[in-house]
């Protein structure tokens, strides 16, 4: 019983995390964790700056198909 609860809870946690990554909710967290940011080579963007910059990049090449 406890094992089932544990498996279910792990599945739900993973699903939730996957959903956040899929829709872009976790993008800023990934950015903060990335080696490129942690190296300190470039100034770290605020959540707002990152959001706008990310959207400008994403919608400058084909990202939605027919």
């Amino acid at each position, binding site marked *: 019983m406890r094992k089932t609860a544990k498996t279910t809870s792990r599945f739900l946690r993973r699903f939730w*995390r996957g959903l956040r*990554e*899929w829709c872009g*909710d976790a993008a*800023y967290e990934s950015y903060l964790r*990335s*080696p490129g940011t942690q190296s300190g080579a470039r100034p770290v963007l605020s959540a*707002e700056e990152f959001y706008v*910059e990310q959207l400008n990049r994403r919608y400058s090449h084909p990202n939605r*198909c027919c």
Partner: protein
Amino acid sequence: MKRIFVIVVWLGVALLGAGAFGKIAFDRGEPLNATWFVVAAVCCYLVAYRLYSAFVAAKVLALDDSRATPSERHDDGRDFVPTNKWVLFGHHFAAIAGPGPLVGPTLAAQFGYLPGTLWLIAGAAFAGCVQDFVILFCSIRRDGKSLGQMAREEVSERGGFIAQLAVLAIMTILLAVIGLVVVNALKSSPWATFTLAMTIPIALLLGLYLRFVRPGRVLEASVMGVAFVLFVVVAGQWVADSPWWSRVFTLSGVALAFAIIVYGFAASALPVWLLLAPRDYLSAFIKAGAIFTLAAGILFVRPQVLMPPLTRFIAGTGPVFAGKIFPFCFITIACGAISGFHSLISSGTTPKMILRESHARFIGYGAMLLESFVGVMAMVAACAMPPGIYFAINSPPSIVGGAGDAAAATISGWGYPLQAQTMTDLAHKVGELTLWNRAGGAPSLAVGMAQIFSSTIGGERLLSIWYHFAIMFEALFILTVLDAGTRVGRFMVQDLGGRVWKPFGRTGWMPGILLSSAIIVALWGYFLYQGVVDRLGGINSLWPLFGISNQLLAAVALVVATTILMKMGRLRWIWVTLLPMAWLVVITMTASYQKIFDANPRIGFLAYAHALAAQIANGKIPVEKIAETHRLIFNQRLDAAVTGVLAAMILVLIVEALAQWYSILSRRKGPVLHESPYVATRWAANFSGAAHGDD
């Protein structure tokens, strides 16, 4: 023992698939149950994935998990982000799944359910999935380079330029034709027009929330947005019931076309966070939900497929679009089986986020299988309604003789019994003023979906809500493609213009933004307007033109893939990309030739122009319509020229590639492969991309 068990299971899947396929292909008795389609498709996909994609992965591409992917080498948290393969599958699928696999099969249903279904499944397994998979692999090995860059480096400079022009051409025609689908879905429909119009303020509200209130909190904003959208779907009914508001939102085709053109310009020129991105978030969630609901609905309701396997229109006299089953079935299905546009996604964001080379099989091949399944579901939804209703919705008035009794008599005369009252009742049940002559695929698909949904939840009472939910779902994500495409087209125009005059190429320069947005919108807007005023219904000329350009882009991608495989020394397996490429060249060249030169005015652009000119010369056109007819003649000649240019582009590219292949095969020139150098991965074998610390 375990091995024997696995073999037995896979043998069982293969036999089940073959049996279901046989039932679909050879059963000529009672109407078929849709379950057979689902079983045949799923079993074929499983076998194709297990065997063919594994063969391509192991033998043809020799995927190497010891090699670091671009996301590992350049991990910057922006473009290059190591991503869990399930999450990236979702990203990739959301990017490739557009209106094409819904609309194409719905239109191709005029040939009957069989040819379209066969091509959707076989085309995806042997052509579409292979293209997506191989191009993804090629791009991964080149640090995520685009198709144009790969064509330039691996085929020739000119090849790269042709690929860039082909992308701009397909984008222009694509945006026009999907705009036309929206126009035909919203025409004379206050409910649907109100619902879709309201998604704009909802998106603006979300945009402001995500920018200033809770930056980047996409999930919570999307949940709010989806709730608002569902509310306006229901509220549309009140608008339709109010005489004053209903008049405000009842727009003609031309008015809707101009509204869409203005919207496209605004979405391209406004900051992306304000309108485009929040609308995309809404669209992604609703798209995922609607596709899942449709699949569940088909499995739950198990509708009967009422369309015959083959109709009388395979000979080329179809009312929805003219042309014989070969090549027009393949051209019409397009994205559900193979889409050139996917090669742009496979050489865009996805290769920069992939964790391991082996994931390319699941993401590249697997996501396209799922897209094909969406196409099969659309085919089922379109074929589950009585054929008479299908033809009444999708035929232009010039073919069926208007609406009402005359049109019902024409359609019944084709052997598909229909009474005018049936259409009146159906329109009333779904809350529309009329369902006659709504070519474009969206309304008929919405009727099919609504019937399946309402049989699951709500019954006939909710038929109108489900119908407008389906229309909103289709129109919402069509407009998402339209605004995202216009913006990308704007960048392409700026890129090309910047070569002539440097300031124009600066993406942050406001006059450049406005002018390039106006140019790209004018390009597709012209074709959209032309489609709306076309006496043959617009779809008849624009959808085949879109199909041809899309399949030509796929041929470009496969030329690049074949050249790369040849340079890699995989000559033995070259047929994997060469055969689909040859097939695409044959169908696109045949279709292009017929669309330009066929003597039937409904097929050949020049023949139609000639027929219209003859009508003017014979005094059959009233004086007040002469100027309009001259414009129609010009449009037909323009369409013929565009088709000719597209065909010429692929021929030039093939000649370039043949010269390259000849030098490689004759060993005159050593093959120069532009792959990034091998770097060994430093990630552990069980690293899943989610292991950034929080599991």
